[in-house]
C-alpha cells in the first residue's frame, strides 16, 4: 500500500473516531434537510407543474451536497485551525493533501443517506420515476467533491472567524438565490449572469441530467465547469497546504 493511501486511510479513521458520537446527529440533520427541501420548498408553489416538480425533486440532493461541502466543511476546518488540530496534523509525515482528502471524504459519506432519502421522497412526492444513467455516480462524486474542496479552500485561505461568516453567507446564497430548485430563466439578468460563471447551476444540471436524462444545458459544458471549479479548489488547498511561514 502506498504511503499516500495508508496516510489517507489512517487520517480518515482518525476523523471517524473523532466524530463517531456526532455522526447519528449529523445524519439526522442531513435527512431533515433533505425532507425539508422536498416538502418545505414545495409549499412555496401552490401549483406545481411537471417542470417545477422536476427541479424540486432533483435539486434536493444537489442542495444537501452543496450545503454540506460549502458550509459544514469550512466551519469544521476553521474549528480545526482554532483548536490547533490543523497545525498539529501538519507535523505528521503524511502527503499534504491526505488530511484534506480524509476530511472531505468523511463529509461526503455523512451526507449519503440524506441524498438518497431526498431522491426517494421526491420521487414519491411528485410521482415521477427516476431514470439514473451510467454517469450518476461520477456526476454525484464530482458535485460533492467540488463543493467540499471549494469549502476546504475557503477555510484554508480565510481566517477562521471570517471563513465561518463566509460559509453562512454562501448558504443563504445557495438556498435562496441559486437556480437549483428552479430554472435559471426565473432569475433576473445580473444574477443569471453571475450563475453562468459560478458552478452551482451546472452542478444542479449535472445531477438532474444524471438522474432523469433531462438536460436544460449542455451537459459537457456543465461537466467541464464543475471540473474546473473542483480543480481550482484542490489547487488552492494544495497551495495553502504546502505554504510555510
Amino acid at each position, binding site marked *: 500500500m502506498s504511503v499516500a493511501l495508508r*496516510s489517507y486511510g489512517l*487520517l480518515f479513521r482518525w476523523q471517524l473516531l*473523532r466524530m463517531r458520537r456526532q455522526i447519528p446527529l449529523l445524519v439526522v440533520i442531513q435527512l431533515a434537510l433533505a425532507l425539508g427541501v422536498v416538502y418545505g420548498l414545495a409549499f412555496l408553489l401552490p401549483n406545481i407543474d411537471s417542470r417545477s416538480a422536476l427541479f424540486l425533486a432533483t435539486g434536493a440532493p444537489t442542495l444537501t451536497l452543496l450545503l454540506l461541502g460549502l458550509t459544514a466543511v469550512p466551519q469544521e476546518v476553521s474549528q480545526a485551525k482554532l483548536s490547533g488540530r490543523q497545525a498539529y496534523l501538519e*507535523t505528521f*509525515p503524511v502527503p499534504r493533501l491526505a488530511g484534506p482528502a480524509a476530511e472531505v471524504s468523511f463529509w461526503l459519506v455523512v451526507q449519503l443517506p440524506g441524498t438518497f432519502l431526498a431522491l426517494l421522497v421526491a420521487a414519491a412526492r411528485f410521482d415521477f420515476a427516476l431514470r439514473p444513467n451510467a454517469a450518476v455516480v461520477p456526476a454525484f462524486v464530482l458535485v460533492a467533491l467540488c463543493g467540499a474542496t471549494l469549502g476546504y479552500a475557503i477555510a484554508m485561505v480565510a481566517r477562521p472567524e471570517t471563513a465561518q461568516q463566509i460559509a453562512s453567507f454562501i448558504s443563504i446564497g445557495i438556498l435562496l438565490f441559486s437556480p437549483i430548485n428552479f430554472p435559471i430563466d426565473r432569475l433576473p439578468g445580473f444574477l443569471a449572469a453571475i450563475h453562468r460563471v459560478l458552478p452551482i447551476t451546472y452542478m444542479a444540471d449535472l445531477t438532474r441530467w444524471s438522474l432523469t436524462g433531462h438536460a436544460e444545458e449542455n451537459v459537457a459544458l456543465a461537466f467541464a465547469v464543475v471540473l474546473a471549479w473542483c480543480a481550482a479548489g484542490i489547487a488552492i488547498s494544495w497551495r495553502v497546504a504546502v505554504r*510555510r511561514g
Partner: protein
Amino acid sequence: MLLQIDHLTKIYRNGTRANDDVSLAVDAGEVFGLLGPNGAGKTTLVGQVLGSLVPSSGTLTIEGVDVVARPSYARAACSYQPQTSVPIDGLTPREAIEIAGRIRGGDRETVRRRGAGLIEALDLGEWASKLVPLSGGVARLVAFCMAAVVPGRIVVLDEPTNDVDPLRRKLLWELVRALADGGSAVLLVTHNVLEAERCVDRLAILGSGRVLASGTAASLKTPLGGMLRLQLVLEPGASMPEHPTFLRQHSVAGRRVVGEMVAGDASSAIAWATGLRERRVVEEFSIGPATLEDVYVKEMAEAR
C-alpha cells in the same frame, strides 16, 4: 551530527528577529535542552526543525539532508509534542496514541505493544480507554506518548512536564532518557531549569533569539566554579535582614532569598544563617553548589 543548525536567522514579515545567528548541533542518543524565557525564540527554532517555518538565512540539516529544501524529510525524521495541548477530542488516549504511531509508520502490533507500555509506565491506565475530558497534565502525558510511541530520529518535546504531577513527572523524565538511550536525539524545550539540569546531556540558553550560552550543565557552571549558593526561607512576616559582606549578590522572591558566595565563606554563612534561625527571622536555610538556575539567571541578567 544528527541535527546540525548553522547561523540560523529567522525574521518574520513584521520585522521580528525571532532567531539570530543560532548555531547548535545535537547527536543521536543525546538529550539536548533548549532553555529560555518566553519570546526567546525557542518555538520558532522548533518550527524550523520541524519544517513548518522557513529560515531567513542559515542552514539546517538532519542526517546531512537540507530540510529547508526538503521539509518532508524533517516531518519524517521528527516526532513532536507541541507546547499547546494536542486536540484528541473524541478519541480515547489509547486510540490517539495508537493512531499517531500508525501514522508515523509503525505496524499495528508494535504500536499496540509500545502504546500499552507507555500507558503503563506513566500510570495512565485509569484513563486509557475512556472517552472523557482529560485534565491538563494527563492530556500532556498522552501527547508525549503520541510523540514517543514510534519515536522519530529526533524527538522534539516542547514543555513536556507542564501541569504534570510530581510523581508522573519523574516517570516522564525516565522515559525521555530512555528515548535517547534508544538512539533518538531528544530536543527538549523547557522553562524548568532545575529539572532540565537532571535530564539533559547538553543545553543551550536562548535569549532574544540568540544563543547566550551552550554546553554541558557542568561546563556552563564553570564560571561560577567555587561559588556556593545560599538559600534562606524567611519566617512569615519577617523582613530581609541586612546582608553580610560575604553574600555577593542576592535576590528576593517572596519569602525566598538566594545569594552567592565563595566557598571560603561557608562557615561564616552557616553561623550567620543559624543565628537568624535562632532569632526566628529565618525558617530554614541551605547551602550548596551553584545550579544551572544560577547560570540561567546570570545569563539573562547579562543579556538585559
